[in-house]
Structures are given as C-alpha cells and as structure tokens.
C-alpha cells in the first residue's frame, strides 16, 4: 500500500521519475529545481535507476539532448526553472513539432531582472505558445501524481507530445510535505514500456525534422495544433483512470465552493489552496464567493471553463505574471476571450499578485474578492494592471 511519508517535494518529483523508470535524464541545475536533478543524478550514480544521465553545459543543450533521446525512443525526463526554461525556448518548439514526448518538471520561478530566484509564473507564461501540454499542481502530492501521469499522457500513441508539470518554486519544491508515495509494485503496469513507432532507427532510416518549405509548413502547423487539441481526450482518460485506481481525483478545472458563487477567483498553482482560506472566511460573513482553478493550461479547457464560470456575476482572474503593456496578465486575456462569445457571461476583471516570491496574505485574497465586489457595484474597471500587495 502507498505509504504516507514526510518528504521534500523536489525529492518526491525525482522519485516519480525513477518510478516511471526513465531511460534518459538531461538537465542543468537551477534554483529552485536543483534538488530534483541532484537526486536523480544520485539515483543513477548509485545504480538505483538504470538511466543515462546526460550532463550538459546549458539548458539549451539539456532540451536538445532530451528531444534527441526521445526521438530515439527513450523515456525522457528533465526539469528546470525560470532562466533555464527561457534558455530552452528555441528547442521547446522542437519537442512538440517533432512529436517527442519529453516530460518536464517546471519549478515555477520569476525571470530577471531584477534577478529573482523566487516564485511566480513568468517562466511558464513566456513559453505559452511553444506547443507543450501544460498542467499545474497546487501541492506536492499533485506534483508527484501529475509527474507520473505526464508520462502516460505524453507517450500515448494518440498524443506523442511533450508535457510540462508546473509547481511553484520554493513554496512547493522546498517544503517537506506529508504525501502518499506509491510502492514500486503498485505502479507495475501503470506505465508500459515506451514503444515509439516513429523512433530513429538505423535499420529503418528516415528523416525527422526536415526543412518545411512554404508548400508544407502551414499544413505541418495545422497538424500540430490538431494534435494538442486532440490530446484532451487522453488527458481526461488518464486523469479519470488515476482517480479510479488510486483514489486521488484530478480535473482540468477544479472548483472550490464555486457552484453558487457570485464572485469567483480564478487561480493556478499553489495559491489555490491558500485562497480557499479566504473563501471560508468570506463565506462565514455570508458572501457568496468561490474559486475556480485552471489546472490544465494547454490545451486550454474552453468548455469546462465556460461551464464553471457562466453562472457567476464576476470573475477575478489572479495572474502571477505581468503582460507588460497588455492586459494585466496572460491568464486574464485568455479567460476573457474564452467567455467573449457566451450570450450570458460574468464580468471579468484581473489582478496581479505574488510576483518574484512576494507572499500573498489572507488580506490580499480578501482584497481580490473586494475588487470583484467593487467592479460589480460600480461597473468600473480598476486600473488596467491592478497589483494586489503593491506598496503605493
């Protein structure tokens, strides 16, 4: 039976990669992800994981090695954060376009400058359109579970796409959390060996990654977009099957007291559980508030989100990243546009908080709901980028 253990979340994520029996790990250490790849390097060095650990001089090369290894039919894992993800940018596009199912654990961290090693979501948002399946965990247990599920999703013959699992740097990575770890036997058969039909093979030579002249590039991109949209079916199956087998349920959109809520706070990542405390406090005052968590970021769960939000009067979108000179943040603009065609839709307002490791207090969450209340009362949108917790 799964044991409940106290474990640093980074180590649990590395253990998930071990239990997935990865063939190749290539990564470059960066705070706050370092413990993950350090632990994997130890496992390989100690003979506890039969894998190639490819040491590299940069994240750009780490991702290149991962794509190459996956193309050769290996089960591949990597992990990074912030500047590391930014340095991978160029190769991030290759993994989905070559249909190589790399799994990445992304310890979300702010981007320079000023230099910040602390948590926000600027890194993942900058890579939004690279074509990766992208999913958020809001605690260590979820990060562990989703890492295992990521292999199952990405390697599914109907998907064959890379998957990034997002979890907040430090807030989750460096916390010792009580979580249920599977015994290795429990996972037997959960992840069958990865048999890549299209792998590079000298006995059956073929070309992967050729030039796409203007005659075919458009069609290739269409094929890729359809592939990630179609992955949703497998994502749903994998989440459902995990819940049925192991009792922990995951959905593309999660709810907290949002069914009858007038004002909904829309969250991603670890802030979700923290904001629940504010919802409970406001509910005690008789306020109809709730939370909707956008767990699945890509492919974007349009219909689920619409269903979750249309009955509310106002949605306050919390962005952990600023879209400079645009709408408050990328999540706000996506949520607003997803609702645009709905004949009955809530008002949508955005705020930014928790940048570069700034804690979001209970009062801050309550203020976010107040932004919604005021917006409903006055119909007047606050300044375009409303930053909660800003000194002014």
């Amino acid at each position, binding site marked *: 039976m799964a044991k409940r253990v106290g474990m640093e979340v980074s180590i649990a994520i590395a253990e998930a990669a071990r239990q997935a029996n990865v063939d190749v790990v290539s990564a470059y250490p960066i705070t706050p992800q370092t413990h993950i790849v350090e632990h994997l390097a130890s496992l390989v060095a100690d003979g506890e994981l039969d894998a190639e650990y490819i040491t590299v001089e940069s994240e750009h090369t780490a991702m290149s090695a991962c794509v190459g290894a996956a193309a050769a039919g290996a089960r591949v894992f990597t992990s990074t954060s912030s500047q590391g993800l930014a340095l991978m940018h160029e190769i991030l596009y290759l993994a989905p*376009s*070559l249909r190589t199912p790399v799994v990445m654990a992304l310890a979300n961290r702010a981007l320079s400058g000023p230099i910040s090693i602390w948590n926000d979501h600027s890194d993942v948002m900058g890579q939004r359109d690279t074509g990766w399946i992208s999913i958020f965990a809001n605690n260590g247990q979820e990060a562990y579970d989703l890492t295992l599920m990521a292999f199952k999703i990405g390697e599914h013959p109907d998907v064959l796409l890379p998957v990034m699992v997002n979890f907040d740097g430090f807030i989750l990575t460096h916390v010792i959390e009580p979580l249920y770890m599977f015994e290795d036997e429990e996972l037997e058969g959960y992840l069958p060996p990865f048999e890549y039909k*299209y792998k590079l093979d000298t006995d059956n030579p*073929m070309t992967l990654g*050729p030039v796409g002249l203007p005659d*075919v590039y458009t*069609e*290739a991109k269409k*094929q890729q977009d359809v592939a990630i949209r179609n992955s949703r079916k497998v994502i749903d199956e994998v989440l459902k099957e995990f819940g049925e087998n192991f009792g922990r349920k995951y959905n593309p959109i999660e709810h907290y007291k949002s069914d009858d809520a007038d004002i909904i706070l829309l969250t991603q990542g670890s802030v979700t559980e923290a904001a629940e405390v504010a919802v409970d406090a406001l509910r005690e005052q008789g306020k109809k508030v709730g939370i909707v968590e956008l767990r699945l970021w890509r492919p974007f769960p349009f219909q689920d989100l619409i269903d979750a939000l249309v009955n509310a009067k106002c949605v306050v979108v919390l962005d952990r990243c600023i879209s400079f000179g645009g709408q408050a943040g990328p999540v706000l603009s996506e949520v607003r546009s997803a609702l645009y065609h709905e004949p009955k839709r809530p008002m949508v307002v955005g705020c930014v908080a928790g940048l570069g490791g700034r804690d979001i207090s209970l009062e801050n969450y309550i203020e976010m709901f107040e932004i919604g209340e005021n917006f409903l009362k006055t119909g007047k949108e606050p300044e375009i980028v409303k930053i909660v917790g800003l000194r002014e």
Partner: protein
Amino acid sequence: MMNPKPKWTELTFACIIPEPGNSVEYKTGDWKTLAPVVDKKRCIKCGTCYIFCPEYAYEKDEYGYFNPNYDYCKGCGICAVECPASCITMEEEVKE
C-alpha cells in the same frame, strides 16, 4: 512519392520523411545565378571540386574528369575558389 502539395491530413506524422535517400528527387539546380564551367584543357583531374562540393554535385566521367550536375549545383562557387588548377570559372547560365 508524396503529393507535393498535401492537405494537412495527408502530411506524414510530424513531417517525417519515411523514405531514405529521396533528396535526389528534389532538384535544387534552379537556385543558382552563376554556374561553374570546367575548362578541361587545364583540368588535372585531382577531384578537389568533387571533395569540396557541399551538394555532391560533381560526378566523375569515363575519362576521369569531374563535371558538375547542373540539376543539383546551387552555384555556390566553392569549387571555383578551391580548384588548384584554376580551371573552373563561374559564368552566367543564361547569356543574353
């Protein structure tokens, strides 16, 4: 051979080219503006042009001379620069 203008549903998975060696079907010779012309009176048959050609466009004939295949030569001019006998000149393919 694949339809040169496939619909997106007809494209191979991830644009894989499953058939090895089919680049010969793709003639790149019309990219060039200048074409190498070999003066066989001065050619010493050393094969330097053949070795340096990035397109493997030079072919050896029965007399031991190396001749550019204009179906594939892109006109880069590397052969003309490298030829130790200076017997290759880059000339306009179409003379008006």
